[in-house]
């Protein structure tokens, strides 16, 4: 379990990093928190000759908030974002997801950008990005691209990033109005990648009906799944036991998860529905609390 020999580069600026990537082409790879990449190196599943560590580029570690945008630098760690008030307010669903990512030690190193660039459909951040319609900003030798989440995740561990591009930030539009979010998962152990995970972020209208709803699922498909079918059932209505049940069934109907050592496909499909109804209920409760506490 020793990686193939590589050279480590530690650029201080983004432009240096991009220049290094351009220079080494397919032989170069970006290193963020290393929590996914280092195991891949040790298993020799990734064999770059040059590793370009983004750890010294200060500009990538900021969380910024403008009235219309929450901007999370790619090198912001899970732990840093988990504690951020700006994230809690600007992306409640994301804030709710962090405690489910691995353990504290891994969250202290793993980054939001690394998680999204890695493109694992079992990861919380990829699902959250899809649900919140995040915009991924990529910078490369050909300039800057803004890639919407729905175009970003192409297949299992495959994203729209080119090999010479650096993901620099993730932009999210904050919710306007009383909002609640919830994230729940079933993992075999605390901190494992979930067998199934579900998140919901809900904004309520004055009359208590659902004005905006985003539901996402992890672990059930090759790319992070947004449960549009469940959202369609719920939007515009106040929730009821029947409607969450219908939303759960609608979710189950469209899913085609796979089986592995840890759980069967049938189990994942069924539990996905259960988790959808649970997170929607909790998110609505939290949004209602947000309404009453604002009043």
């Amino acid at each position, binding site marked *: *379990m*020793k*990686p*193939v*020999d590589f050279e480590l580069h530690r650029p201080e600026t983004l432009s240096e990093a991009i220049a290094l990537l351009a220079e080494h082409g397919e032989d170069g790879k970006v290193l963020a928190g290393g929590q996914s990449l280092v*195991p891949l190196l040790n*298993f*020799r599943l990734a064999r770059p000759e040059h590793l370009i560590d983004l750890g010294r580029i200060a500009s990538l570690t900021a969380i910024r908030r403008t009235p219309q945008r929450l901007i999370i630098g790619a090198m912001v760690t899970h732990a840093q974002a988990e504690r951020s008030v700006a994230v809690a307010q600007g992306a409640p669903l994301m804030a709710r997801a962090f405690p489910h990512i691995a353990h504290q030690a891994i969250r202290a190193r793993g980054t939001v950008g690394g998680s999204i660039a890695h493109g694992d459909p079992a990861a919380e951040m990829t699902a959250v990005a899809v649900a919140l319609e995040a915009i991924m900003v990529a910078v490369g030798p050909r300039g800057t691209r803004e890639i919407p989440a729905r175009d970003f995740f192409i297949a299992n561990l495959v994203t729209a990033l080119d090999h010479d591009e650096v993901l620099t930030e993730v932009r999210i539009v904050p919710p306007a109005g009383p909002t609640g979010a919830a994230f729940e998962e*079933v993992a*075999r*152990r*605390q*901190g*494992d*990648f979930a*067998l199934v995970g579900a998140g919901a972020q809900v904004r309520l209208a004055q009359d208590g009906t659902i004005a905006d709803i985003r539901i996402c699922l992890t672990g059930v498909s090759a790319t992070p799944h947004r449960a549009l079918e469940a959202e369609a059932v719920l939007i515009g209505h106040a929730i009821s036991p029947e409607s969450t049940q219908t939303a759960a069934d609608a979710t189950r109907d469209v899913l085609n998860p796979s089986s*592995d*050592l*840890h*759980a*069967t496909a*049938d*189990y994942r499909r*069924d*539990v996905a529905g*259960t*988790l959808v109804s649970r997170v929607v209920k909790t998110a609505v409760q939290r949004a209602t609390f947000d309404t009453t506490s604002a009043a």
Partner: protein
Amino acid sequence: MTKKVEPVAVAKDKTLHRYLSKPARVREDRRFVTGNGRFVADLTPSGTMHIGLVTSPYPHARIVAINVEQALKLPGVVAVLTGAELAKATEPLRQYIDVPEVQWRPLAVESTRYAGEWVAAVVADSRALAEDGAELVVVDYEPLPFVMDPERAAQDDAPLVHPSHGTNVMVKREFVWGDVAANRARAHATTKVRTRWNRNSTVPLETFGVVADWDQHRSVLDIWASIQMPQFPEQIAGALRIPTNQVRVHFDVDVGGSYGVKRGIKHGVLAGFLARQLGVPIKLIEDRSENMHGGDFHGPDRIFEVELAYTADGEFTNIRIDVLDDEGAYPGRSPLQLAKPIGAIVGPYRIPSAEYNAIAVTTNKTGQVAVRGFGQSPTNYAIEAAVDAVARELGMDRMELRRKNFIQPDEFPYKIPSGTEYDSGDYPGVLDKAIEIANLPELLRECETIRAEGRLAGIGVATCLEPGGGNAIFENIMDPSTDKSTFPESCRIRVDGGGAVTAIVSISSAGQAHETMVATLVGEELGIDPDRVAVVRADSLSGFPSQSPVGSRMAIVLGRALHGAASELKSKMCAIGARALDLTPDEVAYCDGSVASVKDPSVSIGWDDLVGIAHRKQHLMPPGMQPGLEVMHVAHTPKSGTLTAPDGTVQLYPCFSFEVHVVLADIDPSTGKVDLKRYFIAHDCGTVINPDVVRGMVYGGTAHGIGVALYEQFAFNDDGQPLTQSFMDYLLPSAHEVPVIVDAEHCTPSPYTTHGQKGVGEAGYMGAPAAIAGAVNDALTACGAEPIHSLPIKPSDIWRALNARTPNQEGSS
């Protein structure tokens, strides 16, 4: 995480012990807690070369050709060794049953028999270069038919793992003890339960490692290894075809976890051979994946059928246990694990007759080895599942059914039908203690409350034995042509010229705190502060006979050796003291470092004077006595020395510890996730030597049992590929999964040991899998679902059991 309910009880006559059973620091902790353990990976003699391994990608394949040219061209690579070359110069590794056609070698010869098996070794300047080199070795394989399922492997037309052996069945033994026909006739009914104990192991934090260095001028092969292995030096010497006095195994290396699995014979032979051939120190430290799929350290992989016969009022009359064990590709020592449970075949229950049918088969899986309990925990699980099933059949309370069948305290020593005598026990007393600490009425209410809230809840109970004091007799049981019956331990005690006491042992330890144990026992025997007793480890050439810390035996057998050495030392001091006091040896007694007149204790001679005479004053020594204060004692295992009788009865281990687990599980009915809400253990290992060590063993073993019950499995897919190659998929329970464990000690001393102590190395693990499965099944059956009889129990298994209920059954929940 843990809560103390009451201090650990000490032996009945507390005044007898000065240091034993008293709270005291565990002396090993300091170096481990500060990160100053000294493990084999920390040792790199100058000039060391490293091994990288080429492993088989196929579960079964013929090796057509191996091309090492490219690998040898890589700068830094110094040699590549293939199985054919190694086989020419070495003997096959030892098998413990009579299967001459089953040849186990460090590197596969002609064919590979599991995915991950070592095929070639690359030696290079660094481990990274050795791995680079291993990638360049090109092996041409011809895939062969393979078998992964033990029941399929047992069939006549199954693909053969070792074709020249003619069958996959490695050993098959059938035993009948007692009047089975009469006892069956007396029964009102029988219950049959098929249980599946899937493959798991004690997965150590430290993988296996070895450093070997051949000194050609002194003709000594020095080995530092992460071992817990009886006869390691002899087996290395045997395989390498060198005299046993040319192998020096160093035992002063810390071993980072084992519980049976740190055998490493093939690793030792490979490194030893290369060290001799290349004339440089050779280091092999397994990486995690190699350890998991190629280390040959998996544990039992068993299918049981237990049939329990019982009367209408719940008295057990006969037990039949059929077991099929999947040994993987090379049986090695693992079939012997089918023998140990014979010594506790009826558990803590008074069952007058028993039948036992044990079969070991090979499959194309990684090899199996000894694991904590040597087959006892799986057997306990199978027996307890049958006991719970009887309780369900009869509608009887599970604790009361057990209590009714317990061997009673006044029946010891108690001979079970298989011929083994249980030394002592107070099973009802320990159960009472468990009920007390669990506050059973409150626990039942909590269970009902959870159910009323719409979740599933269940209580599990297990009452299990831990046989301790491992002996050699299982070799004779599984292969009657083997008549080995000796399994000693030994110790030297030295009082040096300065009067300091040193105890010398020749074993390595894997976390059992032997240094604390030895110091405490020597302190107790000699009446001196254990903190003043140094404990050191001799190597295998300068040391003494030892069979290593297996089978929960060190407190028992090494304890006996310590007692023997201390007694000899004391009588020597008495002889010296008597002469100095002008008395005869029988007129004096040793007490706390002095020798005094029995009649008038004020007439005495102290430690320093005794030491001075022994080391420096020949003119005051009793004539003919050797100078110095140096004694060595080799002890047999208590109650050993007999072979299996023609009727199949046999005395296995001498001592029997006992534990009762009571656990409350809370289960989410939609997801099948199990939360162990409450965990209680009442435990009896006789006289406790060090309370923290005992508690650590109980907690650790329980954590291991939780892993077995709910998380851990070495799984393979239908293509014969291992699915668990890292801790991503082999799920060890963490602090999140192990609940607060509330424990209490009970003390029923053993009559066969020096201070009443029994074994504790397998505690917790003996009963936890059975108790947790019992809790899950209590929850399932309470809502009309069928119980699950396969470990580990995954959330999706529970979900499936709940969904398989008929609507009618669901209504009854």
